[in-house]
Structures are given as structure tokens and as C-alpha cells.
């Protein structure tokens, strides 16, 4: 990329002191990378010449190259995930059913994430009440705060935030654990002992995530609505009966059910993505680190994308 002439800043020849630009002055030259040569930029700063040089091949071409590499990488990752998903559906119904592994993963993915999901849910509900009160008070609709809090939490924020928190906690764990098993050849060892790694390692993780995420979201929904109620009624002084009535009047069961469907899909997304990156990690400790980061980033982004798609399918008119 650009090479800034650091030495030139110190040793550059004296030049005319800068003066305020006049309208008639031509605009300063913009370095345009040209093939096969260097573009130079020379500026006068506090009486000294400051030079900047840009190597063309390290500029435009690198950007194109990076975009290409990124797209290929994403395509490859998507392909791997597709293969993994196909493999999972093939191995899911096969015996032996590993209930012990499943329970263990439910503990890891679900039980251990409970506290952080509850905390997120609570503060989400509380801040929603605060924010919507602020807005609704401007046109005297404070009584609708309860409706807004409940709808937002049930339909959107409960599932999405729980999905993101579980990605951060359990998705990263899955990717790091499987990645370490991969680079230390433990996954190969399973294979050589006639145990299918997909069946043994991945099926329990994915099933556990799909089962537990909706459960976590139920808890999160409940405590989020409770948090909203506490802030609205106890702190902001909205009438308790009015708040509850308005909530019940406008919120339907389908709002919650659709939120739960979403969260099950999020569980599938985060576990498949995390397992996929962990499963094909390579290159020692650095590789495991990279796999973990990618797992969390891709899971989070895909959860948000899936959220939009599901919302338009489930709630769309």
C-alpha cells in the first residue's frame, strides 16, 4: 500500500510556509495509482516538504484481490456448512442415540448460558420501557409502553439477543473445542476407532442448541417483560392495571410462538456454523483461534440475516 516517506518529513528541503488557500488555487493533487509506476504526493507542512508515495500494485489490485479472496472464502464456508447440514440430517436418526452426550451439551449450551441470557433479557426489557416511555410521553401515549415492550421482547429482542449471547458463550466454546480436537487429531482418532465424528460430536451439539435456545428465550421473554413492568410502573409511575391490560389486550400468543420458532432456527444456525468452523480448523493454536473468531462472527451475522428472513416470512403481510 502507500509508503509514507517518514525520513523525508524530517530531512525534506525547506519550502514556502503554508498560507490560507484561496479560491483560485488548484485543488491538491490526489494520488491516482497507475500501473507500472509510483504516484507521488508532495505537500508543504510547517515549512517542510512532506512526501507520500503509493505503489500502484499495492493499492487497487490488492483491494480487488482481497474482495475475491473474501468471496471465495465465504462461498467455501457456505459449501462446507451445507455439506455438514446434509451429513447431520443423515446421521441424526441413527442409533445409538447418545442421550448422555445430549444432556451434557444441553448443560453446556443451555444451563450454563441461563444467567447471562437472563441478565440480557432483564436489561433489554428495562431499557425498552425507559426509551419507549420517553417517546410516547411526547404525545401522551404512555399507557402503550407495556404493549411495545412485550411485542419487542417477544417478537424480536428476546430471540435475537439470546441467540447472540449463546453464540458468544456456547458457539465459541463449540468452535474452540472441536477445533482443538481437530488439530490434535482426536477427530481422526474417533474415525480410526470406527466412530463417526459427525454422529458422536456434532449431532448432540446441534440438537442441544435447537432444543435449549427456545427454552432460554422463554425465560428471557418473561424476565424482559418483568423488567419493563418494573421500570414503567415502579420507576416511571405508569398505572399498573393499565400497563397490564394494555399488554394483554394487544399481545397475542402467536407473537411469542413465532419468536420461539425463530430462536430454534437461531440455535440451528449458531450450532451448525460454529461446529463447521471448529470441525475444519487447521494450523495449530492460531488456526483454532481463527476458527473461533470466524464462528462467532459468521454465526452472529447469519442470525441477523435469518432474523430478517424469518420475520418477513412469519410476520410479513
Amino acid at each position, binding site marked *: 500500500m502507500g509508503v509514507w516517506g517518514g525520513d523525508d518529513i524530517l530531512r525534506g528541503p525547506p519550502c514556502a510556509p503554508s498560507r490560507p488557500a484561496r479560491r483560485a488555487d488548484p485543488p491538491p493533487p490526489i494520488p491516482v495509482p497507475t500501473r507500472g509506476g509510483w504516484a507521488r504526493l508532495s505537500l508543504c507542512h510547517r515549512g517542510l516538504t512532506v512526501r507520500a508515495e503509493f505503489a500502484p500494485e499495492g493499492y487497487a489490485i490488492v483491494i480487488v484481490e482481497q474482495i475475491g479472496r473474501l468471496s471465495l472464502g465465504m462461498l467455501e464456508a457456505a459449501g462446507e456448512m451445507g455439506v455438514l447440514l446434509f451429513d447431520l440430517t443423515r446421521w441424526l436418526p441413527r442409533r445409538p442415540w447418545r442421550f448422555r452426550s445430549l444432556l451434557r451439551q444441553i448443560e453446556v449450551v443451555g444451563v450454563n448460558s441461563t444467567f447471562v441470557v437472563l441478565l440480557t433479557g432483564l436489561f433489554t426489557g428495562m431499557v425498552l420501557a425507559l426509551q419507549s416511555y420517553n417517546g410516547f410521553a411526547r404525545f401522551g401515549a404512555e399507557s402503550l409502553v407495556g404493549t411495545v415492550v412485550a411485542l419487542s421482547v417477544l417478537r424480536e429482542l428476546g430471540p435475537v439477543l439470546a441467540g447472540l449471547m449463546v453464540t458468544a458463550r456456547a458457539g465459541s466454546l463449540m468452535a474452540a473445542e472441536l477445533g482443538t480436537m481437530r488439530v490434535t487429531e*482426536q477427530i481422526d482418532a474417533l474415525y480410526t*476407532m*470406527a466412530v463417526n465424528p459427525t454422529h458422536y460430536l456434532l449431532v448432540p451439539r446441534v440438537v442441544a442448541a435447537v432444543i435449549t435456545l427456545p427454552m432460554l428465550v422463554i425465560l428471557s421473554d418473561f424476565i424482559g417483560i418483568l423488567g419493563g413492568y418494573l421500570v414503567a410502573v415502579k420507576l416511571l409511575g405508569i398505572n399498573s392495571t393499565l400497563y397490564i391490560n394494555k399488554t394483554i389486550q394487544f399481545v397475542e400468543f402467536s407473537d411469542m410462538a413465532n419468536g420461539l420458532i425463530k430462536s430454534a432456527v437461531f440455535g440451528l444456525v449458531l450450532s451448525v456454523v460454529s461446529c463447521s468452523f471448529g470441525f475444519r480448523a487447521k494450523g495449530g493454536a492460531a488456526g483454532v483461534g481463527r476458527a473461533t473468531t470466524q464462528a462467532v462472527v459468521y454465526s452472529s451475522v447469519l442470525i441477523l440475516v435469518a432474523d430478517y428472513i424469518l420475520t418477513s416470512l412469519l410476520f410479513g403481510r
Partner: protein
Amino acid sequence: MIRLEKISKAFGSTVVLRELDLTIERGKTTVILGPSGTGKSVLLKHIIGLLQPDAGRVYLDGEDITNLRGRAREPLMHRFGFVFQHSALFDSMNVFDNLAFGLRENHLCATAEIPARVARELQRVELSGIEEKMPAELSGGMQKRVGLARATILEPEIILYDEPTTGLDPQTTVHINRLIVRAKEALGSTVVIVTHDVQSAMEMADTIAFLADGGIVAAASPAALCGNPEPRLQAFLNARGDVCAHLPHKLEHVGPGAPADR
């Protein structure tokens, strides 16, 4: 009998194996010898199916097993044992569960029998009484022996060893070599060992296959190999003095009782 036919394998632009042919006799010890980075481990992983060749076939007793996958491959995997270079013990399980894992998963014996079999297997590798330890608590040499026990407890027909003594001190190396021979004699299995340790190769091999530049340059008994004038082979054999002048005795009939390196 295992037969590899015109196996080629490349990783990206790096060609590792080039139309490699190799035959491994049933019930014999075949050592794949060669400099580091010539694809010895890659070759071994092709035999068991951890890697697929870009071209070429792998035959086991005349049956083409190159592309067998999933369920179709499972009965085949019971016939193989694999000892990994870095042991690859399951670090979330203790030694007992590591050894019991294959027995349980493949229902090879009744649950009540498992402790006795694990104990017997640990005794064979002279590590009795460490069932409750975690792999991380063991020394490198002990991990290798547990890895060996984990493979042999399943009583496979064919055992593949990936660099079993790399990175170990000479005394432990001798010890592991004795255990390998003892396991072979107890099970009557076919053994394939990948190593760059000339001395160990000479001690154990019925046949040494020398791998260089992606192909088997020579495959013969240790004594016959010494007579082969191939320059790459001679340079490798004699890099640290003339091994062929004093061929080590073949390790045979190794009963229990060798000193353990606790």
C-alpha cells in the same frame, strides 16, 4: 495384504505422492522409512482412509477400499488400528475411558468385562494403575504407550504406527519398539510403521520401504536394502555412520518385563 496402486496426492500446488506403488504383506512388519516431509504420514493416512488419493487405488485383500465411506466403511475400520504421532488421546476423558471408548462404542465386549480388559492392556504397556489419570498428567512417553494400548485393546488385524518414537529419548524409544513388537506377537497382526529412525527400522522391519520424492524408491529386507546402491537411500542410511556395517538384531520374542520409564 494391502496394495497401493499408483497413488497420487497433492495439497494445493505441492505434490506429495506421485504414482506410488506399495505392497504390504499380511502378518509382517513393514516400515516406511524416509526423510522428514516426504509424505510418509500422508501415505499411512491413505491406507486407513483418513485421506483420499487424487488418483490411484487402495486394495485390502483384493477388495478396492479407496472410496468406501460412512456406514460401508465401518466394518473395515474394525480391522484397523492407528497409533498417532502425538497420541491423540481424548483429553476430556481419563485413561480408563480412553481405553474403554472403542470397546463401548463398538460393543466389543460386555460392560462388566471392560475394567479387566483395560487393566490387562495397561499391564501390557507397563502402566498398571493409571486408569484415573488424565492424559495431560502423563509424560510424552506414557501418552504414546496409552495411545498404543488404545489401539491394541480393539485387537485389530492391521496396526498402523505414525512416527511412534519421534521426539522420545533413546531409552524410551527402545521401550516403545519392544512394546510394538510385543503387541504384534500377541495379536499376530500386520504392522505398518512410519519413521525416520533408521536404527528402529532395522530392528523391527521385515520389509523396509524407502520413500523419497513421492515414490517408493526401494522396498526390501534390511539386509537387502543395505546392498541397494540407490544414492538417495545410501545417503539417508549412512547419514550418521554406517548402520549396515553392524545391522542390529531383529527384535523378536519380547516378553513382558522390560523396565518401565515412569
